[in-house]
């Protein structure tokens, strides 16, 4: 009834997962600029996909089960996309010369502490 994979499949997947773990550590020590984060995420997503498909037998599951598996990540993407769309667009100007939206800038760590690069909406910018 349920799918039985050959042992070699499990050992192969384990080997690939170990290789990808080594790769993600290796990549973290190399300066890839803005690509460090996407590379780390890409490797993690690949590893998770292998676990889901082969260790969790999603590859051999019914179409309804596959739909449920996909659904969880679909909802996760809605959570990330809509939330980030909101937060990252709060500083956008709404009309020419208009004020930057409130709540865009994260609270400062400490006065005078050096900050992350990136534009911060200035107080009183609307007065210009």
């Amino acid at each position, binding site marked *: *009834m349920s799918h*039985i994979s050959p042992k070699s499949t499990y*050992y192969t997947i384990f080997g690939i997962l170990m290789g990808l773990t080594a790769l*993600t550590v290796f990549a973290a020590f190399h300066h890839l600029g803005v690509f*460090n984060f996407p590379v*780390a995420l890409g490797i993690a997503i690949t590893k998770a996909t292998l676990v889901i498909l*082969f260790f969790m037998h999603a590859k051999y599951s019914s179409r309804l089960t596959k739909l449920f*598996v996909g659904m969880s990540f679909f909802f*996760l993407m809605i959570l990330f996309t809509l939330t*980030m769309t909101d937060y990252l667009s709060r500083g956008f100007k709404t009309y020419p010369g208009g004020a930057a939206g409130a709540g865009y800038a994260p609270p400062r760590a400490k006065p005078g502490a050096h900050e992350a690069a990136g534009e911060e909406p200035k107080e009183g910018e609307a007065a210009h």
Partner: protein
Amino acid sequence: MSDAAAIPADAHAHGHHPDLQHHFDSLEQQHEAATLGMWLFLVTEVLFFGGLFMAYLLYRVWYPEAWAAGSEELSIRLGGFNTVVLIGSSLTMAMAVRSAQTGYRRATVGWLLGTMALGLTFLVVKFFEYKDKFTHHHVPGYDFHIEGAHAGLAGPMEIFFSLYFTMTGLHALHMIIGFGIMSVITWMAYRGRFSTQWSTPVEMSGLYWHFVDIVWIFLFPLLYLVDRTGQ
């Protein structure tokens, strides 16, 4: 591996199997319902952890330097070791499920005990990592402070460590629960409760354990490997 014959093949699998509940037509249907139900539970788990990953993402975008500095305080050796241990435990779990499906009772018990041993190893390493954070005052809300070059980032770094403890703590809690579930499953396997026709509890525990592994697969690069190029 020689005790395959210890589990007698059920000649009346359909409708007569003792583990077929009367509201299902067949063991296949029962198995499908269990699998779907387990995955539905895992969907809620994905979204449960998803909220924390969302918080992580936003604060990382806001405080990239604090994230890099916080990450450098974590031990890649211990985190990497735990990653290998946990993926290894996923392999032993997959082998336990396979042994149960093919009716090898002793192998099932062995692989399950191996999985529990690796899970315990992970938790012991995690304990020492936490202990180290208490020693270095990196526990949010408990005399938290950062010394040296990153002292100015103490505020956002406290947020990083808050998320570190919440995410790894919830993950560890899932592992402790998984350890409890596996104790029961191992006992059931030892008593010969599973057969080639019915090993659903082992399979469902496997799905849960692999999910916990997947959470760690994301936690390791996101917490330990933010930016190591500055070293």
